[in-house]
């Protein structure tokens, strides 16, 4: 699952991919950033369970986790996570007729995940808002 990087680090890497002009990642950064951001969400939700109510939920499917999240963390917070995760998930698959997401879409989802992390107090205290 997470294996190494924290959600914060993943989000940082995803943001960096979107914003920094690098010839090596030219053109492919949308999908790469989407992959990282989605893994960041999954890691963040796992952390949420681990530090709180029901650690065992981390083993269930994402769909189950998101439903429980709505119940436990409230609809507002869960809403942010659900929609971002759904969009990022879609970006991580090659769907018929769909192109990769744009930079602004990705940054929007990354921001949403960060908001979740800070609201649920998952980020390290130094440097979070």
């Amino acid at each position, binding site marked *: *699952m*997470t*294996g*190494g*990087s924290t959600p914060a680090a*993943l989000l940082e*890497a995803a943001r960096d991919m*979107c*914003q920094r*002009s*690098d010839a*090596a*990642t*030219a*053109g*492919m*950064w*949308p*999908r*790469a950033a989407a*992959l*990282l951001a989605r*893994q960041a969400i*999954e*890691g963040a939700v796992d952390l949420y369970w681990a530090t709180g109510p029901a650690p065992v939920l981390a083993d269930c499917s994402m769909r189950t986790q998101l439903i429980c999240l709505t119940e436990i963390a409230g609809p507002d917070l869960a809403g942010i996570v659900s929609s971002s995760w759904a969009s990022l*998930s879609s970006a*991580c*698959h*090659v*769907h*018929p*007729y*769909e*192109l*990769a*997401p*744009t*930079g*602004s879409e990705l940054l929007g989802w990354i921001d949403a995940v960060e908001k979740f992390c800070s609201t649920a107090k998952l980020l390290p205290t130094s440097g979070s808002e």
Partner: protein
Amino acid sequence: MDDALVGAVVERLGLRPLKAEAEALLLAACMGQNELERALGGEVLARPVPPDNQGRRPELAYLESLEVGGFRGIGPRTRLPLSPGPGFTLVVGRNGSGKSSFAEALEVLLTGEVRRWAERAVVWHEGWRNLHHSPPSIHLTLAVQGAGRATAELRWADGQDLGDPATVVQVAGEKRSGLDRLGWGEAIKAFRPFLSHSELEALLGRPSELYDLLAAVLGLDDLAATAERLRVAVRAAETPLSDVKKALGPLLGRLRQIDDERAAACELVLNGRTWDIDAAERVATGAQPLGPGGPREELRRIGELRAPALEDVVLTIAALRDAASRLETVTGTDSGRALKLADLLDAALLYHREHGDGDCPVCGRQEALNPAWQRETEQAIARLRAEAAVADDARQSARRALLSSNGLLLPEPQSLQTDVVDGTSKARSIWRTWLRAPIADDAEALRSRADHFEEHISALADAVEKTGVGAGRRQVDFHVTVDGTEGAALSVMSQGEVNALALSVFLPRVTMPASPFGFLIIDDPVQAMDPAKVEGLARVLSDTAMERQVIVFTHDDRLPEAVRRLGLAATILEVTRRPGSVVEVRRALDPPARAIEDARAIAADRGVPDDIGRRVVGGLCRMALESAFAEAYRRTRLSAGDEHHVVEDRLLASSTSLTARAALALFGDAERGGEVLTKLNGWGGRWAGDTYRACNKGAHGV
């Protein structure tokens, strides 16, 4: 006239032949005014042979590369690489990625403006500079057959308007010059090789504009000129005819007055629509109308209809009323009696002069003939003769007024018989009413005739003018049949169908042999088209691409997917945008190959931390497998005849699970996920199954 057009006319004559004379005159008119005159003079001209080849073609120009900077969505200078020569290129990018900026840059370079903004408010024009990067510049490299490479560069300094750049054009081996060197001013207007989505809609929105666009290119002007030549010739030939017609009125009047059965018979044969010239020797023949009839001829005749001129009508009315009042003053007098009496008195005076005073020879009164009597009689004679003259005069002028007012009663025109244009039936009935003017020549009838004219002239003039305007309107009609029922195309078609229709009109115009543009650019034609129609579009564009360089901008994957699936040869370029208007263009391979290439790039990039790299590579590899399975499934099912949306629905349903997708591709059934590993191992050995499993896990971070 263009050789090809003459060839088309000859071909048409082959299908619908005319009389030999008419054909000869028509072809002579096609070739020119001189030839027509010679043919009218009786000379026999050689019949033109339709050309075998397409005619002379100008040198074609192709696009080699386009570099744009500081313009619209493109910040730092970015290059769009194209291969000069016929071929199909697709430029794909999301909305706002900068792909349309390339198309607009090309349009600005060649036409000086972007038509999409031309009719909008000023604020659209003002935003053409990129916000993040300056100064704006557009650089185009062309390959012109026969001339070599040419470059055109536009630069703007701060504060300069869009229409005001510094332009430098350089053709290989020549000195620098301006945009005129390319010589495309007229050609751009006639064969405009750009088409954006909004233009597609507008193409069919204003019929008179569409007519103008097509007429110039289809050579309708040449055809119109030929028709005009024929018309002028017809008019010239008809002048003797109309002169004769004018003489006919009075002639008929005189015939009526002659009390002779031959005159009556003559009047009969001359008074109808056709004149029996054998029976009436003194009438000349009318010329046969030249040229083919048909709806255009009818429309033209309707357009040329004129109601009687108002001044003529007013004069006629006044003359009629005048004649009527003079007739009234002389009613009761009998000019015949007065004349006879005057003659009698003249004879009496003569007798008196010869034989002197004496008794009246008629009644015997004593001493009746004396000088006093002589004076009275002379006065009486003068008075009687004057009376007679006045009465005669009044009657003559009444008859004259009646006959000349007949000139206003033109027979109902044939062109109004058919309902070709709105309002012809109304015009017909008004004309018929007009013709029912009273005919007699006594004072009352004359008055009521004058009243009749006065009453109806304005209605007649209006009706004729309306039909004339209707006939002169320029428009293009598309007729369709839907399930066997006819209708007008534009009102029954959906938006996607209208776009397809506009494209089908646009493509031939651009690819005409006379066009110097070897390239054509279409911006976003796929909007509102469903996948089946997109497939058709891909085929049409691919066919066009055999002779021209076709560059299509599109914002989703439908067209590229169709191109890939149909196996059409095409180059696909992807445009993505980073913050700061940094636009990247790269060649797209098919999705599996692309995903693997990207994975390789990440893996080889030392700057990426290991953990990050592993996650991304894992995800990309899974995407590669996903899309490979999807393509395999799509290919099989679509060629088996399944419908697009059914296939796509199934693929969508399996998109969350790689196993389901693999089962769909391998077995056609998403439920048989359990057999996938076995199948893969059996096909390639254990490494296949292991790779599959690794990719499946890897997307979630190993």
